[in-house]
């Protein structure tokens, strides 16, 4: 056995000290480390297999550093990710602002991919691009393949309010209303969780959901007969720009 095969790339994003590392630590090692806070340097990767019925799905979790210093690097972590767990600290409203920033980044990244795909679609004059078709017959070089592959695998966002135990202990500490967070999650099409790495509350549920969603999507991906119609996206920026000249 050499390197572990990873099924789904998961990236943890959020302001520093919101508790990303603690979440991973709780989920992977079932523990909560007390003692002085150690900020992550760069990013840490850990692969975690998870049993879903008969199947085992291995999550490759990227725990990124929240420090602004590494912001430029973060793109390489969320590129190609199937899930982004965007964390904020329930007791710190500035961290919620930062979470909004990350959501925007993720959405921008997806938009770019859609646009690239749209342009490709026009250049190459593909009428309908079926998933099965391109998987077997695209040999326009690895880059194109990667772009198409990445584009068809959407990155799902999971919004996660952390340190729930602090709120349970003292309600006045809550700085982000439950419903505000819930509404925001709905608006961006995300799942919403409130967790505590200290008590373990909701942590397994969060990662389990990530793995399940991946598994369901992968199932659809393989069995879908109709394929993906790329021509549907007519309102994009590139569409108008291409048709103006």
């Amino acid at each position, binding site marked *: 056995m050499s390197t572990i095969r990873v099924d789904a790339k998961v990236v943890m994003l959020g302001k520093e000290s919101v508790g990303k590392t603690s979440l991973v630590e709780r989920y992977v090692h079932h523990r909560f480390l007390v003692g002085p806070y150690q900020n992550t340097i760069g990013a840490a990767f850990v692969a975690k297999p998870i049993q879903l019925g008969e199947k085992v799905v291995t999550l490759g979790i990227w725990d990124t550093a929240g420090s602004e*210093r590494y912001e430029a690097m973060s793109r390489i972590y969320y590129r190609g990710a199937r899930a982004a767990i965007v964390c904020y600290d329930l007791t710190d409203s500035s961290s919620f602002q930062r979470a909004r920033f990350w959501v925007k980044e993720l959405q921008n990244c997806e938009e770019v991919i859609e646009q690239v795909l749209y342009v490709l679609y026009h250049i190459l004059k593909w009428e309908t691009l079926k998933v099965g078709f391109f998987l077997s017959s695209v040999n326009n070089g690895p880059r194109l393949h990667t772009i198409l592959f990445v584009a068809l695998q959407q990155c799902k966002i999971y919004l996660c309010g952390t340190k729930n135990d602090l709120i349970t202990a003292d309600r006045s500490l809550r700085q982000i209303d439950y419903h505000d967070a819930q509404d925001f999650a709905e608006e961006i099409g995300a799942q919403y969780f409130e967790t505590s790495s200290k008590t373990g509350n909701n942590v397994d549920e969060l990662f389990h959901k990530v793995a399940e969603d991946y598994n369901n999507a992968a199932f659809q991906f393989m069995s879908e007969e109709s394929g993906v119609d790329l021509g549907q996206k007519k309102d994009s920026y590139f569409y108008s720009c291409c048709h103006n000249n």
Partner: protein
Amino acid sequence: MDGEAQNESVACEKATLAPVDRLRSNRAESPTPGLVEGTEPGAVQKSAFFAHAQSFEDLTAEAEEKAEQEGVVEDSGQTEDELQVLVGERTITEQHAQDVSPQSRSKEEDMSSEAWRSHRKHVFVLSEAGKPIYTRYGSEEALSSTMGVMMALVSFVESDKNTIRSIHADGCKVIFLAKSPLVLVGVSQTYQSDKELLRELQYIYYQIVSLLTLTQLNHIFQNKQNYDLRRLLAGSEYLTDNLLHRLDRDPGLLLSAVTCLPLSNSVRDVVSSSLQAAKAKNLVFSILLAGDRLVTLVRKKDQFLHHIDLHLVMNLVGSSSSFREGEGWTPICLPKFNTAGFFHAHISYLESASDLCLILVSTDREDFFNMSDCKQRFLERLTKRTAYQALKEALKCPSYSVEQVGIPELRHFLYKSKSSGLYTSPEFPELYQSDEEQERLMGLYQDLHSHLHHPVRPLRFFYRCTNKENLLAWVTNGFQLYLCFSPLGTKAMAVSAVNKLLKWIRKEEDRLFILSPLTY
């Protein structure tokens, strides 16, 4: 200063002069230590892995040249008043001490307090616009007025076409290092020379560059002169704190060298060749550490690692437990290699509770999985061999006691082989177990070191008696040696101990040093 200092190098060199010969056979047979670089005990047989083993000179040369051209300004009358604010004759602006922001790190301290002022060594970093970036003690916010004074000093002297280098007053030294776009200031109550203090500031400068690159620093300040750099450095202060702590404690930083895990030659060779086999296209350095000790280092052909860069890597790894969780992947600038860009380091421990940490340095930021694969291959290869067990055994005694050398009056020593850039030193003996005593001994070594590296009158040989210990320092083209003896010994005894010690090191050299570094 008590004791005596003389330039005795000539006499001593004659006494032990060995034939200048780099042949391997000769070197192994001859018990007499060579005095020429490349033949001393611990010398490397092929090319070393460090870029410039000249060390100290290399580090301060830049700053010195500048000073020589521009002249040194000390104690100008007009600065006296402002200086007092720095060294704390008067109370430091109290209203500022109150608005220390509550979320600032735990080293909160009342800046107007006696305790704050009595720290032995303060270090401040500020931008050229005078914005605080780092302070060793207390919080930067509370210091802004002090920083203002420092900037006033710096710009006052700069406008005179001079660069202010140091101010001496009242048992206190203030040292300035202008490294555009940063200004570093050290305020010291120790006996260290300006040159030593400057060297430490330089280290702090490199620490900051290693986090951001100089290119990024310049870019930021070109766009916005009064940018608050703490935003980008947030969460890294402890790296600088730890580096300063190491500068007080770690002989490696003093000697510009690193020390190795004592390991039998054959075991080290297996580890090295396993590491060598796990190569990849963009891999530049593979470093295996056991705590702060080097187990082995493999480098790309023609690429050298500078000891400062290695110290920065060690500081990064040693300061953070965050690499214990999974595999770390971080951009890191190695400023002595190139201040412009980032390398990307894969950092992981070989086993979860182990001290063995592997650092794979790649040029490509997309290389994580390749590096992860290299680690896997290295580990697979190594675990199949008995050498791995021997290596883990060796971790249990990462040092040796001075008794093993068999010189009764010898208490402790530092020996650096110049050509390899490696040093060896026994563990601190019973007498120097406490933190204070260790720091005191390091202080004595620092003092010897600055005499041997005095910018105007460097000594080759230095013997000094105090009522607590006798000290001897000796530098040749091949090595640097610092010894600490019991105060009862004589100088003659010390000199003869040196010969005995050098023979012992020669005998043990394949265990204590890495004699044949590998390239991919």
